[in-house]
């Protein structure tokens, strides 16, 4: 084994540095007040059960498109990750690109929501939100931007209701659930999801937190905090860290029946790409996705491997399919400075090209 050459005074310096940062860091931590999440002003325009449909207020000087963009986020995390802070907000970027942005906040399901199925989410809630916008804009169809699991939902929706979707953008969206690097799919293989849902009713958010941390345990539970010590004296950095930290541990419980279907039919049986998936008694045929599709994926995504997203190209029926690769990971695509510069403007430009 090669030996490192660390002089004792270097070790002493590093020791002193970490100790001092920790000691001084307590003061900064005590100065942290409540961490606000979601920074762009918004108004609720529709509510149903736990769901709220928001419209983000566009910048006054910016002309907006005539067809709204509806952002469909995952059920497993909270959507404020798309609008975390002023300089790290996909929503702000989309508004800046001239889009009229709406977002579905699914809320926090409780035990009264245990029997909600994917049909309720996709043909129910999502469809009614789309109808609200169609009426509001007197439009035949709207633009959809589905993120992560919300992208899979948007894809199913577009296949089931192609006449209501003008353009579809999927972002870090799993499509093929059996790619070799897909950890979640491997882990789900031997889990008796029927027993879990029957026992727990709704799947607890604590369980999801653990699953997500286990994707990179030593980095997410160890190294990340050691990195923070280096910057404990930077109050702004500390705030940003705590915002992301809040989001990571803010996983809503999952409505039992919808979770059962999602794990069994998508993760365990990979039915979406096989054409065997039915939702609400209707077959989800990806060939019916005939509207323009922009597939945004992250090259270093540890949660949705790039191959799981890129599979989409083979299955959709559209002639107008494009991909946008982001050089970062699943979280970085929401919050990195690089993403703010690249992703929302590219989505805006792509939609603008397809807006008559």
């Amino acid at each position, binding site marked *: 084994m090669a030996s490192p050459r660390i002089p004792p005074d270097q070790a002493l310096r590093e020791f002193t540095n970490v100790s001092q940062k920790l000691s001084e860091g307590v003061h900064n931590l005590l100065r942290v007040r409540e961490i606000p999440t979601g920074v762009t002003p918004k108004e609720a325009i529709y509510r149903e059960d736990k769901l709220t449909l928001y419209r983000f207020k566009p910048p006054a000087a910016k002309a907006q498109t005539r067809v709204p963009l509806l952002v469909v986020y995952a059920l497993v995390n909270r959507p404020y990750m798309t609008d975390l802070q002023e300089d790290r907000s996909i929503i702000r970027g989309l508004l800046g690109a001239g889009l009229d942005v709406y977002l579905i906040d699914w809320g926090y399901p409780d*035990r009264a929501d245990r029997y*909600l199925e994917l049909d309720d989410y996709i043909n*129910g809630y999502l469809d009614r939100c789309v109808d609200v916008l169609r009426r509001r804009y007197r439009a035949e169809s709207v633009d959809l931007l589905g993120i992560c699991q919300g992208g899979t939902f948007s894809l199913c929706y577009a296949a089931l209701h192609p006449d209501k979707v003008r353009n579809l953008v999927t972002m870090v969206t799993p499509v093929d659930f059996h790619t070799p690097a897909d950890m979640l799919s491997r882990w789900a293989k031997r889990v008796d999801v029927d027993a879990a849902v029957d026992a*727990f009713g709704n799947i607890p958010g604590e369980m999801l937190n653990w699953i997500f941390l286990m994707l990179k345990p030593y980095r997410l539970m160890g190294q990340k905090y050691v990195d923070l010590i280096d910057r404990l004296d930077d109050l702004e950095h500390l705030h940003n860290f705590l915002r992301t930290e809040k989001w990571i541990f803010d996983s809503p419980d999952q409505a039992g029946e919808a979770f059962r279907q999602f794990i069994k039919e998508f993760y365990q049986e990979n039915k979406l790409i096989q054409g065997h998936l039915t939702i609400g008694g209707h077959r989800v045929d990806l060939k019916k996705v005939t509207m323009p599709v922009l597939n945004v994926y992250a090259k270093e995504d540890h949660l949705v491997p790039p191959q799981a997203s890129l599979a989409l190209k083979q299955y959709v029926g559209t002639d107008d399919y494009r991909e946008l690769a982001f050089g970062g990971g699943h979280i970085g695509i929401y919050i990195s400075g690089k993403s703010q510069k690249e992703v929302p403007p590219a989505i805006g430009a792509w939609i603008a090209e397809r807006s008559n």
Partner: protein
Amino acid sequence: MDERPASSDWLTAQQKYWDAWLDLTRQSLAFAVPGEAPGPAAEGLRRWWEAVAPAVPPPTQELFGRLVDLSRPYLEMAEQFADRTSEDSGAALDQWLDGLNQTFGATERSAASTSGPDAPAAAALWELPLDAWRQAVSALLPIPGDVLKSAKQADAVRVRVELKDKRDRLLSIPGIGYTRELQEQYQQLWRRVADYVEALQHYDLAFVRLGRRSIENFRKRLDAAAARAPIDSLRQLYDLWVDACEEMYVEYVLSDEYAALYGRLINALSAVKQQSSVLLDDMLEGMNLPTRREIDTMHRRIHETRRENRTLRADLERLNERLERSGTASSTDSKPHRKTKHH
């Protein structure tokens, strides 16, 4: 204006104490005799934090406690390196890795716990997944999540092997009398708890083995990194260490063996939860209180009724539209100059 809270003065005093203590530690490390046991700096940090923690509000306390815990292996490493000459830093690293290896070996041979008082702080890195699991489970089950935390593998495995048969026989004794069914329900619960504990032990052991493989991988990575450029800081060493662990972890968790362990753990947990709910429902029923079963039934019925309502409402809207269209069409036929109404 000073934004610091009232407890700040006390914290400042604590900081002064820490600075003074740190200064002493620095001096003792700087003048340490090579080869002697390292000073108790990492342990000092823990004690300092125990004194400060009560003055810190809970959310901050949790985060900072984590920072202190995670910096301990780093400081422990620093102590060992500060104690040696730079030519001798390889020996310091060897000593550190050997300590880890011994801890894992002892745990695997069922003689110690990776989180025991004598284990190196770095061994706690492999406890992170299990710690997170215990925390999650604590919120989900009536039994404590850290049910096995203090149990040594030795005791747990020995007890499992020696007593499994007896336990199974004991838990299979048929119930008698009026409470026969209840006795069987409790037997079922204890069987499931035992299965869960066993699944957790297997999962735990897998991480201990992973720890040993990670040490080997770290040595290989060290060779590869040293061939590119000399490693001359602890931070580089620490990052390399984390990379080596993550690499072995990813390889392992994509295996069928891990999928089986993982599935067994989750399924065993579900089984305990299910049986706990059955017993709890029986108790609630005895107290003439609503049970989970009854509430679930109500929720299912309400859900079905709402879906039927929506379907009926949609049908009604379609019929109305059709009626309006046919009405409009007939009135357009009779009054050709009237404008068609748009919806």
